[in-house]
């Protein structure tokens, strides 16, 4: 059995997003990156692999451009990559979960790590959905995971603090932001990644009938523009600032 990390390629957080004809114009996105929470999942997946928990496969489903993200993951140490090449832009969460669950089974993985939500859709449903489909324990809001005997020990945030839980296989960890430093690819890793072959399949190859999307996106809109910042100078403005912080920002 092996470890799988589920990665999603999203517009980079620094990229400008243009909306055209009621849809995000994907062609105008200047830079695509791995979704930030997924990066923490990847880091801990690498740590689990290095602890001897199994070989690590990186899985994504998305258009052809997503394969670059898998090669990036290989550059930091992922053993193999599976790309379910499909246009996911009009799919609902359930369809994507079906594909990923089939991909996890295809890779014979029983420890799955992913981000708690993707930076583009923010739906937060992939981790719990996949866990449900493969009948695995699901631990959300994880900020740390390590091998603990035959199972795993994970630290997860709760509204009142942190909670440490122990789970056994099969299990899925959905990652929040973690305190760990993310590793950067080195030249040797990049050269090695270049030689690794990505297994590219379609949902049909995995035996998945994704059916029709249950959700229809009517339109994307840009968020309203943020009001400009306000500047205050001199001691005489302190009372104004305090009033604004209390009454407008509600922070004191």
């Amino acid at each position, binding site marked *: 059995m092996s470890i799988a990390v589920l990665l999603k390629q999203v517009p980079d957080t620094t990229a400008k997003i243009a909306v055209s004809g009621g849809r995000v114009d994907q062609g105008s996105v*200047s830079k695509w990156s791995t979704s930030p929470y997924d990066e923490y999942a990847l880091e801990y997946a690498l740590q689990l692999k290095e602890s001897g928990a199994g070989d690590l496969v990186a899985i994504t489903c998305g258009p052809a451009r997503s394969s*670059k993200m898998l090669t*990036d993951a290989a*550059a930091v140490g992922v053993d193999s990559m599976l790309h379910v090449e499909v246009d996911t832009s009009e799919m609902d969460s359930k369809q994507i979960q079906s594909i990923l669950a089939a991909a996890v089974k295809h890779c014979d993985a029983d420890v799955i790590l992913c981000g708690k939500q993707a930076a583009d859709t923010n739906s937060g449903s992939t981790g719990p959905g996949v866990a449900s489909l493969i009948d695995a324990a699901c631990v959300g809001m994880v900020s740390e995971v390590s091998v603990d005997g035959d199972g795993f020990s994970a630290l997860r945030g709760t509204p009142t603090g942190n909670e440490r839980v122990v789970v056994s296989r099969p299990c899925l960890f959905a990652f929040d932001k973690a305190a760990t430093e993310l590793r*950067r*690819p*080195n*030249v*040797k890793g*990049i050269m090695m990644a270049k030689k690794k072959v990505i297994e590219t399949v379609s949902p049909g190859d995995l035996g998945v009938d994704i059916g029709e999307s249950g959700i229809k996106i009517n339109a994307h809109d840009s968020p309203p523009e943020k009001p400009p910042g306000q500047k205050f100078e001199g001691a005489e403005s302190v009372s104004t600032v305090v009033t604004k912080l209390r009454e407008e920002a509600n922070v004191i």
Partner: protein
Amino acid sequence: MVEYEAPLRDYDFLFNEVFDVTPTIKRLGYDFDEDFLSMLAEGWADHAKEVWLPINQLGDRVGLKFENGEITMPQEFKDAYKQGIEGGWFSTSTKPEHGGMGAPIFFQSVIWGEIATATNMAMSVLPALTLGVYDVLNEHGDQVLVDYFSSNLAQGHWAGTMCLTEPHAGTDLGIISSKAIPQDDGSYRVTGTKIFITYGEHDMTENIVHLVLAKTPGSPEGTKGITMFLVPKYLPKDWKSGDLDGLSHDLMQEHNGVTCAGSEEKMGIHASPTCVMNFDNSVGWRVGDLHTGMKLMFQMMNQERLATGIMGLGLAEIAYQNSLAWAKDRRQGRDLRGPKDPKEPADNILVHPDVRRMLLEAKVNNEGCRALAAWTGILLDQMHSDDPDEVEYASSLVALFTPIVKAHFTDVACETASTCMQVMGGAGYCTEYAVEQFYRDVRISKIWEGTNGVQALDLAGRKITQNMGKNLRHLMWPLTEFIEENRDIPEMLEFNKPLHQGVRGLQQLTLLMIAEGQANPHFLAAGATDYCRYFGNVLLAYMWAKMAKKAMEKKGDPFYDAKIASARFFFKRIYPETVSLAAKIQSGHKSVMEYPTEMF
């Protein structure tokens, strides 16, 4: 906070779209594709931004410590250098058998170089020099020397320097007095003093490998009598005499008679040691044949000249990015045609034509220089082709471009850094904002590796007539072809026509320089700097016309539309300086040379 984003989108445009590098590099035998290039570039950009950039200002303010003949570098620099070795970032283009990655040269020379110097110029010089020593050694050193030194140099564990200048011999190396006395065991004993030795002494690496120019007894006078020697700071601990075959890489405690007598206090690059080095009966080995030292050193020097030009680009880019970030936040005055933001007390300074002019000059020169750097980088790889015609073509163009890349890029970079300070007004002059550091750091680039005046003389006096004029012919062929191809394309007219005029002007000025220069060398020398700048402008014009042509294929996309607008700015607001440059060259040398010397 210092801003910097590596221009990865620009590299993608240049290497993949304008120059379509992949087929060329694959043909040269590399296992290479676009994704690999982008991974290497992104990987290095992340590393440099996260490891090198945060300590750049610290290096400037704390600098290095010279005490009792030893130089101590800031601990942060030592840690960052170690991380660079661990990441393999100093060995992308060195050979796999030496622990290198064997990637194409253009990555290390252009992309690595620009990002390295932008994020930490003082640090960047060390691996760049080491790579130069590695290359010369591998091409010309005896196998025993190659075997002993290459792996440690290739991976950055040991550092390299070039030791040319002496207190009385700078540009005129023919009068150096360093001596090398042959020994019965095949080695030499080298004695002499060298000055301005970058990273001559430091504690970043276990050993420092100096390439020293010296003369053996009975050598011919002048540069023809100079030989190159490899002199390590430390010898192997099991060395007794003779060569280094099979010896340990553990080193002696005592140095090899190589001492540092001091480090210069400088205007910039405070964390880059500039040393006075004494070689006192130091054990060394000859590199290459007797009396070929100048030729070999010039191989390394030419590599460093290209690196210096790209260094100018790196600093000009980071200066631009920081002045732009500042300008975007700064509100002063109103748009002369009426307020742009009436609700604000003042408009953003980007409404002011003169601020826009300054920022555009910086941006457009940077992007033009980057394009020429990209082309030159690809030619460096083509110089290693199996096809002799391709080698001859690439070598000719690299020879021609080297003084232009060095001089034009660094002249423009110094102007750009100054202009970027100007954009920021008083803030630009304050140390809180890093642009003043970039201005101080970049200034050396006009001076070292042969002053820009020397580069201009090299271009006008040597490179244009070298190889029976082949250097120039290899340039004129693609230039003329491009002009012809685009002659009847209406959209290209605004770029192609001035390019054609500039090329014709260049041909006329070249003939003038050769003809008048033969009759009177003062004519050639007095016009050389202006000729070099004219040439640089024509090459950038070619680059901008090529970029505009490519960008037209994707009109409507903001990135490509900006490229066309930048090309327009170049041809309207930068390129016209060729008219005054031509007038200055044509005016000849008399106003310069007939001025009474005693009145200076």
